[in-house]
């Protein structure tokens, strides 16, 4: 494949169905009303010369290269800023225009270094292209005039460089930062000839820049350039694929030279990202070739032994033998597996199939258990489908946006940019969060209400919002009557109108003033189309499922379901968390959320797989750990998940892992869980995978191998080989083949295949004969379950309470530059932005404890103790402290508790009662971790014979 150069029509597509006809250079053209002449010309293959215009940004009209002549109009208007009109006659190439364009290029080149042959953008430079295009042959201004040559290069950003002497001041970067990313870190400083791209701070990396790469993408010259391109040259082939970080699922062009990945650039046709990216997807992919990567299988007898490099055959037969021995000794249900939301749906499918066939039980769970399992449960109960209701583009029609327990600008940056665009257009914002996330106040955006509640009180607050809507006559009775279940609504209405759910009562529980709750409720219920976006701040509580249903109730009761601009939308954490859930990697459900106790479903699988199926649900992850500690669960295969770092109550998890007879870990790196493993099966990075990820909007995106797998074996083949070695005949021939079985056995995926996705780009499930083009928005004509079900959502406080001993509430989250357990991002230059996990603490709490900003503090819960550095900030309210969990040596989950959601056992990461004291040493757990790490990592690897 060659390099993919996307067509640039110069100006964005107008949002209208009306069309106008005009004539350009004698050709008839029909385009959308409101399109520019430039865009109309491009649509018939006439590319009017341009430098400041790009269809990703609003027309700007500064370069003056795209001038055209229009019959009956005087002058030479710019085709980027002049809109088409019916009957217009345009000429794009006349002697007058050609002279003007040469004049413009002559001016540009009179202030541009002429080092094209050695320039890093050589062959990929629009300025160079335009000079050729207009036929510039002479620069008559000489080379002694005023210029910007020799300005120092800014190389402070780890991923790209800024070379101001090559800047043509087209403002594309500034506009991209404003319009696309919404950070507004860049500006033009000075005026006239002294105009230059500028930012606050000494250099790029100390500016407000968030390294999303949008400016680098749009720069027409070498001014903003990836360092990799500067070092290695421009790439020559493209592989279209999907980012493997968060649940937004951005489409990317992997651009390579041979087998060397030069850069990842966002794909304009990507339906989730429309050509935008964040620092992680755009730049932080270097982990894939990091020296820590393990590419050879490893085995050992005991976890105190060093690892031994072995062949795939030996590793697989060793793993199968030990699993079989364990099962023979402890029973059929004594072994199981955990699948990964980082892997493809095909890989997940093979893992759950292996458990349900080879292992003969339902002991399969996935890491969604610890993040969005309440979403699956809550939305299934109320609406009938375990997934978000909207596509991302729906936000462009929202009038009120309610963000609950999510931090989109850090955790879902590309969707956050889309949301911010809508907010800058005037949509109102309500934020429910214990912490002042960036969205509360950011350039040109300010939340109408920030309900800064006490962690753990979500349900009381959502009930109070619904109470206001219900008691003030703000419900959409027409929608309720037509679309929802009557008896459940009446029960709910009685419940919600009770004074216990009033803002005044909620105020006592949440700490949010009652009038603020009332105002926010009125805005949500009456402000037009209202959309809820939420994250783990909703689910990771002991009432996570209750809260999901509380939001579902509120949206139904106000008619905010089933059309664009509304909905209940989980911002899912991982690239394929939706997909791993969809694939039936749950102990109680087959793919498509069908319960294992359902006989018809079970028979379908028994027939397809020629294997008896267990009607009993298997163990959830927490059950696995409990049973392991109890002695009944002895063998575990963990693919692409680091439970020892990510799961709560680390001491308990470690005890469980240590109690296993056989632990098989499949991953890119020797992760924390691998400290307890007997077999390590090297996994593949997303750059090597073939398959699909499913993002938060149910979009099935293709992941295509850009480079050959470093391990010599596709990851799903490893699982298949293990199943075969275990004794079950599994014989998929390709990832596409796996997809075909998924489609055959999952009604909501019936029409999906790799070939179909390669043709269409992507599709949102359900995609079957009833919805052949997929389903951007759910529940349009009716709820999937029939009538929408209201569920009474009584607030039951978590047992985790503050006390004299533990007076503060610790809540956790993540930040932009790092990702979850950090296995990937810590192995990239992103580390410079977040080298360690910090404890955020309010100045009042800090002062009361003698805690200094930057000083070491001990955080102690009834579960454990860790030491980390404090960051004194008013982002958190008094009484609340916050940290991230990106670094294993911090051990944030040493202090989190065993409490979990009543329905799904999703851990209550977000509420832990702690005390914070100044400290001068690392905690006992941390010391133990440091001391045992070398042995447990098995770093003294014995070479293969």
């Amino acid at each position: 494949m060659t390099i993919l150069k996307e067509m640039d029509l110069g100006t964005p597509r107008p949002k209208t169905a009306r069309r106008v006809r005009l004539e350009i250079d004698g050709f008839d053209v029909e385009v959308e009303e409101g399109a520019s002449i430039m865009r109309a010309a491009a649509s018939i293959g006439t590319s009017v010369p341009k430098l400041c215009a790009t269809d990703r940004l609003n027309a700007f009209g500064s370069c003056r290269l795209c001038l055209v002549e229009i019959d009956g109009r005087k002058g030479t208007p710019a085709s980027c800023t002049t809109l088409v009109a019916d009957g217009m006659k345009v000429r794009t190439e006349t002697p007058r225009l050609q002279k003007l364009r040469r004049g413009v290029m002559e001016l540009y080149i009179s202030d541009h270094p002429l080092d094209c042959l050695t320039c890093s953008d050589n062959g990929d430079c629009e300025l160079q292209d335009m000079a050729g295009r207009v036929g510039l042959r002479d620069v008559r201004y000489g080379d002694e005039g005023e210029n910007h040559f020799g300005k120092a290069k800014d190389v402070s950003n780890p991923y790209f460089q800024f070379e101001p002497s090559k800047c043509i001041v087209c403002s594309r970067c500034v506009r991209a930062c404003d319009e696309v990313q919404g950070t507004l870190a860049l500006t033009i400083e000075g005026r006239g000839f002294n105009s230059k791209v500028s930012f606050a701070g000494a250099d790029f990396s100390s500016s407000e820049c968030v390294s999303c790469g949008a400016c680098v993408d749009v720069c027409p010259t070498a001014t903003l350039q990836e360092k990799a391109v500067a070092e290695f040259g421009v790439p020559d082939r493209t592989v279209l694929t999907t980012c493997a970080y968060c649940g937004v699922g951005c489409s990317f062009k992997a651009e390579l030279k041979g087998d060397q990945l030069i850069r990842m650039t966002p794909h304009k046709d990507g339906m989730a990202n429309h050509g935008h990216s964040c620092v992680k997807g755009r730049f932080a992919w270097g982990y894939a070739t990091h020296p820590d990567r393990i590419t050879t299988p490893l085995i050992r007898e005991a976890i105190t032994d060093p690892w031994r490099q072995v062949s795939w055959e030996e590793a697989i037969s060793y793993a199968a033998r030990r699993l079989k021995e364990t099962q023979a000794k402890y029973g059929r249900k004594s072994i199981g597996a955990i699948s990964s939301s980082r892997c493809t749906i095909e890989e997940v499918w093979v893992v759950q199939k292996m458990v349900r066939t080879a292992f003969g039980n339902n002991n399969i769970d996935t890491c969604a258990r610890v993040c969005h399992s309440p979403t699956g449960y809550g939305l299934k109960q109320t609406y009938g489908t375990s997934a978000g209701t909207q596509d991302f583009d729906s936000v462009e029609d929202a009038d009120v946006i309610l963000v609950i327990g999510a931090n989109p600008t850090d955790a879902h940056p590309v969707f956050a940019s889309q949301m911010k665009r809508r907010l800058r257009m005037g949509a109102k914002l309500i934020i429910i969060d214990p912490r002042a996330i960036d969205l509360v106040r950011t350039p040109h955006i300010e939340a109408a209400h920030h309900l800064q509640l006490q962690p753990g009180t979500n349900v009381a607050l959502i009930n109070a919002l619904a109470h206001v809507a219900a008691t003030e006559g703000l419900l959409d009775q027409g929608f309720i009557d037509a679309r929802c279940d009557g008896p459940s609504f009446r029960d709910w209405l009685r419940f919600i109108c009770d004074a216990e759910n009033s803002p005044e009562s909620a105020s006592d529980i949440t700490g949010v003033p009652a009038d603020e709750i009332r105002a926010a409720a009125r805005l949500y219920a009456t402000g037009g189309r209202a959309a809820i976006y939420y994250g783990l701040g909703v689910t990771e509580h002991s009432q996570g499922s209750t809260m999901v249903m509380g939001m579902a109730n509120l949206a139904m009761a106000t008619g905010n379901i089933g059309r664009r601009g509304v909905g209940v939308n989980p911002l899912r954490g991982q690239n394929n968390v939706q997909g791993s859930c969809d694939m039936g990697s749950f102990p109680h459900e087959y793919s498509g959320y069908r319960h294992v106790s359902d006989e018809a479903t079970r028979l379908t699988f028994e027939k397809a797989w020629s294997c008896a199926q267990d009607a009993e649900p298997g163990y959830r992850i927490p059950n696995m750990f409990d049973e392991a500690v109890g002695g009944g669960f002895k063998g575990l295969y963990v693919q692409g998940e680091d439970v020892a770092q990510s799961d709560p109550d680390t001491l308990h998890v470690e005890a469980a892992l240590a109690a296993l007879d056989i632990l098989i870990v499949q991953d890119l790196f020797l992760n924390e869980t691998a400290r307890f493993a007997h077999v390590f099966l090297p996994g593949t990075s997303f750059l090597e995978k073939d398959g699909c990820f499913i993002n938060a909007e149910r979009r099935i995106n293709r992941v295509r191998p850009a480079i050959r797998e470093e391990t010599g074996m596709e990851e799903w083949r490893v699982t298949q080989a293990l199943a075969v070695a275990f004794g079950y005949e599994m014989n998929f021939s390709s990832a596409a083949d796996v997809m075909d079985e998924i489609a055959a056995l999952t009604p909501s995926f019936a029409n999906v295949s790799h070939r179909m996705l390669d043709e269409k780009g992507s599709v949102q499930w359900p995609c079957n004969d009833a919805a052949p083009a997929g389903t951007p928005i759910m529940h349009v004509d009716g709820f999937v379950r029939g009538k929408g079900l209201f569920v009474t959502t009584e607030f039951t406080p978590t047992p985790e309470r503050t006390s004299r001993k533990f007076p503060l509430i610790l809540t956790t989250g993540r930040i932009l530059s790092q990702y979850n357990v950090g296995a990937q991002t810590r192995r990239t230059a992103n580390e410079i932005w977040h080298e360690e996990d910090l404890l955020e603490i309010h100045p009042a709490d800090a002062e009361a404890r003698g805690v200094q900003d930057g000083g070491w503090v001990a955080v102690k819960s009834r579960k454990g103790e860790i030491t980390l550095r404090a960051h004194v900030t008013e982002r958190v309210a008094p009484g609340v402290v916050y940290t991230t969990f990106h670094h294993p040596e911090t051990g944030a989950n040493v202090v989190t508790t065993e409490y979990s959601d009543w329905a799904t056992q999703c851990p209550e990461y977000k509420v832990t009662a702690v005390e914070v004291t100044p400290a001068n040493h690392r905690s006992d757990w941390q010391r133990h971790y440091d001391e045992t790490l070398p042995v447990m990592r098995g770093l003294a690897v014995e070479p293969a014979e």
Partner: protein
Amino acid sequence: MTPPGIIFVSLDSVAVALGADEIAAAFADRGLKIVRTGSRGMHWLEPLVEIEISGVRHGFGPIGLDDVPDIVHALANGADCKKSLGPVEAMPFFKNQTRLIFKRCGIVSPTSLTDYRSLGGLAGLSAALKMTVPEICEEIAASGLRGRGGAGFPAAIKWRAVAAAESEQKYVVCNADEGDSGTFADRMIMEGDPFLLLEGMMIAGRAVGATKGFIYLRSEYPIAARVLQEAIDVAYRAGLLGENAMGSGGRFEIDLFIGAGAYICGEETSLLNSLEGKRGEVRVKPPLPALEGLFGKPTLVHNVLSLCAVPHIIENGARDYAAIGVGKSTGSMPFQLSGDVKYAGLFETPFGLTLRDLVERIGGGTRSGRPIRAIQIGGPLGAYLPPSLFDVAIDYEALAAIGAGVGHGGIVVFNDSVDLAEQARYAFEFCAEESCGKCTPCRIGAVRGVEVIDRIRAGDDHARNMQVLSDLCELMVDGSLCAMGGMTPIPVESAIRHFPEDFAFPPKRRKIAASEHAS
């Protein structure tokens, strides 16, 4: 009516620059009551001091501190003194004007609403309050009023567009970023009769449905800022502004906004960006500000003088106004004479006077006594005209026919020591200094223009560089985004056309030092 013993001293910036504050203090020290007024616009007489004698204001000027005792003595004894000018309004420069806008300027205390009302102020607004919105717009249309900021665009087209636009919020924005060199009419009226501008904005606001007005004032006008702010405060206290403004039942507010020192912010779209707190950079049109202006809302943007013409039109009727002037150039224009001219100052007169009349008869020729060689009309981006063209009538169409424009009414007189190649270079230099930097022809072209003229003047590849200069001018005219870059070639090309000898190499004309005396 004024008790004897009151000394009128101008607070106008020109007068203050020439020592009016010290003069006023000196009179005050002698126990005399001082009233600060605007300027009469006779700058060669500043600081001008006026004393009311038998109901007639007598002038004395220009006054130095040394003259103060003399005047005090004269005042006490009814005697004459050497700086006496007689009744101010009988002076030829004053008497020959048609002061529609400046009728109160120099007479009233600028921030006295009583003074304002007593000389006919608010009559226009009162009349407007009795009219319907379309009637006001039609009155403006019938008056033929054209924008006084420079483009001469018919005002009513904008008024109707803003009035017809649908929006919850509309704005009236006054462009008081008077940046043209040699212009000072906006400043004079804002310092001397600020209520007139407020009244004009209130009428405009009512006509177009705006409830909020902004005055974008250049930062170099501290006195105007002080006077305007005080007038706005007075207007709020008097109920002219705020809720139920002047009993209209509607709300109208005016905020004063001080610019940040950029010439380009006198361009209306840059001004709007600046007012929004953004970089003062030109916006692409369309969308027109009338439909998507300040904060994206329909906005009537007008120059100070355009708005100040409005109360008179509404009070006296469009026909009265349209009868003044010539052809499509109706009404009066306050011309501002400066440069080497004997009687420098502001002269308000109907359109149609010839340039020669204005400069030679009214302006009195050069101050130096040297012959006039060129006049630049319409600001730094206006054309340089030679004496052979001085008989042109000053109206929009007649000037356009010879490649010139009225602009903001600034007229700068140059004697025969001027080097037009140097002036052409200055036009590029000015553009380079003041360009917003958005579009390429202006941002880079202006700098290259200076360099090319330097080469021409140095005789460096002369013919080729004359061609480069011509190509550059063509590019800037056709290719620039706004009038800044688009008009920079006007002074350059008019200089080349009318004064080619200054661009020849070797120079065809003996260089005359400005200090050389006339023979």
